């Protein structure tokens, strides 16, 4: 009976979605991606930020400006470009008060050119979020709101709430993993946290090589013939950082003497 929806299934695709770039996560989300035109809440610890890892593949997939409202730090263009997001698409709005951030978000959602809005709202009330959710659904925008872990117990109008932590489940096969709890989705609750790679593919491959080489602090110099490395990453090209020995540079010596 194709036209009957059972309560233990995920909701049918209602709106457009953008694939998250993580196959394991896509499988657990209704329609297989971040919902467009709905509020997505990302709960994370203040000290352990993981928003780019989670959102960047999806943002890289769509085009158009991305507005960052109240970002905790400066986005670093070369680092984002390395993962496929053109930093020139980013627009940063710095605003101190929550009211200003909410106002900026709402204005951005109304704008026809903006594709996605990322907002960092440490202190926000559910009715304010509801307003954002309404604006996002009216204008069909990607909207991600980053909130602290303490917001887990609060009720929220978000269509999708995920809690991401990099601390549990830290290393699997020597690789860092992110534990992702889906707190709320349109469908049955998910009891087990998902495990996602915590690093971008190339960075992970690079770290794997250095780990294999052992000693800390290592000098990264992957041999081209390193077969295991090629196995680990098909498309990744590992950086070769040739270390200068600390004592061997002529310029250094003159500078120190001067």
């Amino acid at each position, binding site marked *: 009976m194709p036209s009957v929806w059972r309560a233990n299934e995920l909701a049918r695709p209602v709106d457009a979605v953008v694939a998250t770039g993580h196959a394991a996560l896509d499988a657990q989300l209704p329609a297989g991606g971040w919902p467009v035109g709905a509020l997505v809440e990302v709960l994370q610890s203040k000290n352990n930020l993981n928003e780019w890892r989670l959102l960047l593949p999806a943002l890289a997939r769509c085009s158009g400006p991305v507005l960052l409202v109240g970002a905790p730090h400066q986005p*670093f263009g070369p680092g984002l470009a390395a993962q496929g997001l053109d930093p020139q698409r980013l627009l*940063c*709005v710095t605003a101190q008060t929550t009211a200003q951030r909410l106002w900026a978000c709402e204005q951005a959602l109304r704008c*026809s050119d903006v594709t996605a809005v990322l907002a960092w709202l440490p202190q926000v009330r559910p009715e304010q979020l509801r307003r954002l959710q309404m604006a996002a659904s009216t*204008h069909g925008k990607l909207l991600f709101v980053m909130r602290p872990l303490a917001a887990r117990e609060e009720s929220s109008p978000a269509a999708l709430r995920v809690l991401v932590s990099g601390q549990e489940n830290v290393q699997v096969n020597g690789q860092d993993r992110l534990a992702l709890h889906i707190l709320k989705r349109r469908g049955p609750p998910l009891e087990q946290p998902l495990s996602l790679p915590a690093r971008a593919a190339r*960075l992970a491959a690079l770290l794997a090589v*250095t780990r294999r080489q052992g000693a800390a602090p290592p*000098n990264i110099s992957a041999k081209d013939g390193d077969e295991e490395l090629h196995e680990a990453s098909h498309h990744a090209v590992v*950086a070769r950082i040739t270390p200068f020995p600390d004592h061997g540079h002529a310029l250094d010596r003159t500078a*120190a003497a001067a």
Partner: protein
Amino acid sequence: MHWIALQPLPDATGPQDDDGAALVDALAALGWWALQFTPKVAQVEGAVLMEVSASERLFGGRKPLIDKIFRENKPVALFHYARAATSLIAIARLQLSQSAPRKPDELPLTTLLAARSHLPTLTRIGCTTWGQLRALPRGGLVRRFGAGLVDALDRAYGAKPELYPWLELPAVFEAKLELTARIDNAPALMFGARRLLAQLHVWLQARQRGILALELGWELDARRQDAPQGQLVVRTAEPTLDMAHVQRLLAENLARVTLHAPALYLHLRSLETAALPGTTTSLLPDDVRVGDSLHHLLERLSARLGADHVLRVVPFADHRPERMQVWQSASRTASVFSTNSIAAHAYSDRVGGQKDTSKQPKSDARSDALYPTWLLTQPLKLTVRNNAPQCAEGGPLTLLAGPQRVEAGWWGVSEKDGACALRDYFLARSEQMGLLWLYQERLGGQGRAEGHNSSGADWYLHGLFA
């Protein structure tokens, strides 16, 4: 010759204006509007006169032209209009409105401006219509009433050409408004400003231009204050005809202004305009985009939050991470997403190695996989214990990769070159904070003059891998 006389309503309001703001000078607005049909437009006695016979062919004949003039949306509501072969007859018919006789001879003398001062004498000799006046001997009329009356009569009957000081569109819009009440707080000036903006809109439409910069000024009560004037300049990134947007920008700016004394006058001046490009509209209903455009959004955000709070990034070729990108005010740059700038090319060349012409991810380069996604505005100094850096929460740090040496800026002489950087960058992992980007300063950081710290160099946290 075909003359049309138009008279606006005494308290003219714009019928097609969304918010119904009244115009400051309805007659001027009507004149500017009429200029699109003919260059011969004049203001006479509270009416606008236009001579359209020369434009008939352009608009496909007299009837289509007349239809167009009377059907099209005008900036002001019309009270009356009249048509005639000469302007004086048109004005006379305008004054009489419905009851005007068909023949010019039957028009009453009260409608002839030149005869108005001699009206008592003329009435007493039994001369009340144009025809009766025209029947009197010319020589006697000139001697008794002066040449002006005969001239006017000749012009009214088309025997002499009619010349007026023709109306021209001013190159710069400037309008002044006396406020009806003394206004103490700046946001309340918006009411008067809206009337000025409505006038500006008509002027821009007539010139087919969009506004880029305008100045709203006010005069304060001079008895109270030393500096009795103030002004506000509002700029937009793209030429716009959208007065609602300009109005929002003005309101945001006015909200931050304090008036020291009650304001008496407002004036509005256009500082910069640009020709409006035409817009292509879509045939399909789906393509109609709902919402504001990006530059409207950026301007509105900048107006409220301040221009230095709405930023976009511009890549810059430098080896120091804090100088690899420059933050610019987003509203100042008109084309936000042009990637054709020289800086962007330099950047993509640098990121993508040599000549990386293909469009595939520019990232198959050397070390950019080691760049973090967040950069700390101010590098955070780390405490060092046992020659190893500790993270802020006190947890141990494991160095995973590095060093990557950055040595740049030693040529710096002025402020804009930035400081000299002698650093070794490392990737480190912390249990609490995930993957971090640290650097260790070499040679005491500056590498000169300060001498160097024998106890080992300082460690700083510079980026986060989020």
